[in-house]
């Protein structure tokens, strides 16, 4: 079943009471941003309503790489205009998708928060690989890698609490094959279906669909990068569940992206540090917020 097999996928997921969904703010923002002709005023209204998202947008627009040495600081409206749709989409996902993903991966035996940590770590690596290769948009790669495992959210529901460890006969084989035998589709195919439902750009849908098996012909930089980032996140100890390390790395994608052992080790260390920093900032932010509320 490919992403083209929508009838099959509708049949598979149609029985679910509710499909996994992004929080309303992110869903609305993504839908507007992917339309291309979105209204700047409407995007501003959505971003302004979310404190974290507005702050992240201002931070990014006023960062050294965007401010171009400008001494004045940009307001939200200007920031939105400067950043462009791909960056805004990435910021909306980075700020909001954690609510959707934090509890995901239970059927794979993942502890609470582990799926989100793995998504973030892989996203950080994908962004770096895109910057280094110069062949794909770093923000698009970040978003695609962040969403690569959303299919696991639907698998959690489909499996009715049954752990992934029981789907396998015990033989060592790619875990997507195990999932296909069990459900008729694997988490990457299901994820691509969801990404399409969430109005994600086609490049992201494809990268989610192929994050364990990047297409051989024609090849795609974003698919190769997200695939390598997924493996590197695993080496960083992120998102290791009942599927363990049973997701082979494509030697062709590895060579195309040009990763070698020392680089991979440095990127794995970077991925974990990135995740820990974000979590620390979130905790500090929550703490400050609490203090402010107390003193208010």
């Amino acid at each position, binding site marked *: 079943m490919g992403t083209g097999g929508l009838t099959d996928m509708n049949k598979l997921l149609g029985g679910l009471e509710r499909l996994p969904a992004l929080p309303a703010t992110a869903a609305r923002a993504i839908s507007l941003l992917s339309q291309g002709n979105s209204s700047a005023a409407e995007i501003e209204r959505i971003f302004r309503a979310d404190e974290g998202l507005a702050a992240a947008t201002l931070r990014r627009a006023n960062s050294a790489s965007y401010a171009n040495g400008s001494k004045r600081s940009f307001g939200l409206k200007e920031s939105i205009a400067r950043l462009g749709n791909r960056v805004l989409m990435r910021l909306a996902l980075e700020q909001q998708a954690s609510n959707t993903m934090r509890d995901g991966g239970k059927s794979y035996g993942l502890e609470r928060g582990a799926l989100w940590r793995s998504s973030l770590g892989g996203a950080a690596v994908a962004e770096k690989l895109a910057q280094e290769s110069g062949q794909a948009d770093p923000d698009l790669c970040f978003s695609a890698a962040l969403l690569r495992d959303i299919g696991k959210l639907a698998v959690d529901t489909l499996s009715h609490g049954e752990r992934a460890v029981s789907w*396998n006969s015990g033989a060592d084989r790619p875990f997507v094959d195990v999932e296909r035998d069990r459900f008729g589709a694997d988490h990457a195919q299901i994820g691509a279906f969801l990404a399409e439902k969430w109005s994600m750009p086609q490049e992201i849908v494809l990268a989610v669909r192929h994050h364990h098996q990047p297409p051989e012909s024609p090849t795609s930089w974003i698919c190769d990068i997200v695939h390598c980032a997924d493996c590197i996140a695993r*080496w960083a100890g992120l998102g290791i569940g009942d599927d363990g*390390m049973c997701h082979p790395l494509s030697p062709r994608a590895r060579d195309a992206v040009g990763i070698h052992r020392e680089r991979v080790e440095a990127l794995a260390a970077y991925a974990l540090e990135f995740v820990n920093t974000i979590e620390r900032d979130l905790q500090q932010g929550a703490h400050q917020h609490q203090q402010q509320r107390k003193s208010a």
Partner: protein
Amino acid sequence: MSTIPPGTPKPLTADQRIVVGVADLAVSKEPGKAIVTYALGSCIGVTIFDPITKVGGMLHFMLPEGKTSPEKAAANPAMFADAGVPLLFQKAYKLGAERSRLIVCAAGGAEILAEDGHFRIGARNRTMLRKLFWQNNVLLSADDTGGSHSRTMTLSLANGAISIRSQGKETVLWAPAA
């Protein structure tokens, strides 16, 4: 390694668990508790336990050598075998562990399925650990490493028993003689 017999104690409550994350370590001598690390892939969990003082510790390291990321090794030694293992031992000594009595175990070091030998991160982790132990005259009492599956490792601070949960089965890696 043998299968855990029926009548095994109940799972630990959250208060009884000291959880070690990735690139993290913990030492303790609270006999009512256990040190746990979840989901070891290519990373390796190393445990040490002194049966007399009941001091135990666990390290969950990610990579063999800190030289690939020197600043990260300085900031977080537990990320690397060459910096984390000495730190684990030192911390246990401070709590009263004695080197000659230590029971040392390891688990993890799995490999990406069908990897063609290009990276071998799990194998490099295993090799570095053995090299460190060999250089320092430390013997592993038991280990469960390699393959492509994840492992959860638990050290009971009551008696030093180590259990491994992998592929839905729990096994005893090391336990004191009855």
